[in-house]
């Protein structure tokens, strides 16, 4: 019988929630990495027992954790105690938390500065890994989205990381600027039908696409309109919060921008707004039903200065028409006095039938629906603030 594993990253550790396919009774494992911020955890589609986690701290910096048994045990994938830390020719080995920007002359046009809040240029500084996206086919290959915004890749299971420097180096990098949450690369989507195509999104630079496996990149922001920047239709500078894709239609993407919900049907070349009848089109999360590529979920948040649900009512909105026409889903969700937020990596779906939908809140709840959103229940209520939710459907 199928089962479900929900990977939850929080402000103070990681939790793993498991259930059988009925999704009624849940086991809670954790906290793992207690006291540390876990920005994101995700499993490999090629080996569901291979998990990766981004563990981070203002005191001690970045750690990468890896599990090969579905989260029962974890290890830092770098050099083991007692092993040499350098190769015979003096090169460092296995530093799994070493994310160093590529400044070599041979990899395009490496940048040293981006735009700061006051308009001046500011050096690129590594802060943390926001998102880990394992390859669809190789458990040892993982992409990492980092702050300050860049994309890195490992091909040795996380022992070493190399920047795909063509993203920062493609030309608009000096104009990128941080949003309120920092300048983070938070979304990485791998095209299941085209192994060379990768989509990323950066706050607040916008969306970008590579068609050659990450070597070269171009902005894909035509159709985005952001009234809060000097040129609302600029090529870059848009605060994209999240992008989602259905595996069967990788050219169709759905975007939750700072304000506005949008879609593209040509792999990002052109976007159009589909906010429709949403009560507010500000928000962070967006995801697509596992079996219905035109069924989309968002959680509207009141505004950019008031990060909580409108009227204190926690409502997921579902569109069954690919946007524009949205219905509130409230059954089982608090409909008064609710002032939590739902952060950008905190919604996910399983691939069971009916499709399960999951999201976590900054109040520490992880809500689930086992019927595509019609009814909701809390799996857990009192975790630390939830940063990320990823779901694995296990055979």
């Amino acid at each position, binding site marked *: 019988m199928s089962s479900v594993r929900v990977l939850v990253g929080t402000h103070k550790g990681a939790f793993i929630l498991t259930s059988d396919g009925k999704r009624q009774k849940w086991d809670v494992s954790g906290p793992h990495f207690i006291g540390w911020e876990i920005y994101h955890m995700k499993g490999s589609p090629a080996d569901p027992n291979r998990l990766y986690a981004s563990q981070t701290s203002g005191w*001690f910096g970045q750690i990468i954790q890896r599990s090969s048994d579905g989260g029962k045990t974890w290890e830092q994938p770098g050099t083991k*105690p007692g092993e040499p830390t350098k190769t015979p020719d003096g090169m460092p080995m296995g*530093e799994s*938390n070493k994310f160093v920007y590529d400044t070599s002359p041979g990899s395009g046009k490496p940048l040293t500065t981006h735009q700061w809040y006051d308009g001046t240029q500011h050096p690129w500084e590594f802060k943390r890994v926001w998102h880990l996206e394992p390859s669809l086919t190789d458990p040892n290959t993982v992409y990492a989205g980092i702050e300050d915004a860049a994309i890195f890749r490992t091909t040795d299971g996380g022992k070493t990381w190399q920047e795909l420097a063509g993203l920062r180096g493609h030309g608009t990098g000096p104009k990128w600027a941080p949003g309120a949450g920092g300048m983070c690369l938070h979304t990485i989507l791998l095209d299941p039908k085209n192994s060379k195509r990768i989509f990323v999104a950066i706050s607040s630079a916008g969306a970008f696409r590579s068609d050659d496996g990450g070597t070269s990149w171009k902005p894909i922001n035509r159709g985005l309109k952001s009234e809060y920047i000097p040129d609302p239709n600029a090529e870059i500078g848009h605060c994209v919060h999240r992008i989602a894709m259905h595996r069967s239609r990788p050219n169709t993407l759905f975007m939750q921008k700072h304000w506005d919900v949008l879609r593209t049907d040509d792999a990002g070349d052109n976007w159009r707004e589909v906010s429709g009848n949403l009560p507010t089109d500000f928000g962070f999360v967006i995801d697509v039903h596992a079996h219905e590529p035109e069924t989309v979920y968002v959680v509207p948040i009141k505004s950019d200065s008031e990060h909580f649900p409108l009227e204190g009512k926690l409502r997921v909105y579902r569109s069954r028409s690919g946007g524009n026409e949205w219905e509130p889903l409230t059954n089982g969700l608090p409909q008064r006095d609710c002032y939590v937020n739902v952060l950008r990596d905190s919604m996910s779906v399983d691939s069971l039938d009916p499709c399960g939908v999951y999201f976590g809140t900054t109040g520490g709840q992880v809500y689930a629906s086992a019927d595509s959103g019609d009814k909701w229940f809390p799996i857990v209520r009192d975790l630390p603030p939830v940063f990320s939710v990823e779901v694995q459907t296990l055979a």
Partner: protein
Amino acid sequence: MIRVVLPYPLKTLAHVDGEVELTVEGPATLGSVLDALEARYPMLKGTIRDHVTQERRPFLRYFACQEDLSLEPANVTLPDPVISGAEPLVILASIAGG
């Protein structure tokens, strides 16, 4: 034998319970002790000092014999009681957050 006291989160990462004891080749300086610590516990690389610049992370401090060594250069020789093992080098995580 040099004794080093790690903050709790780094003990967890290094899978150690109490103090760490290190043998340092050559002069026992702040830098050489941290080099020896990272060589024995490579999972700590980058958590105390920046990978590239080797600068101390901002919210960590180094103490020994009730003296703050945090701003000392890496090549400063550690106090005799630390070199003899009578006193530990303490790596301290600052209390921050309110």
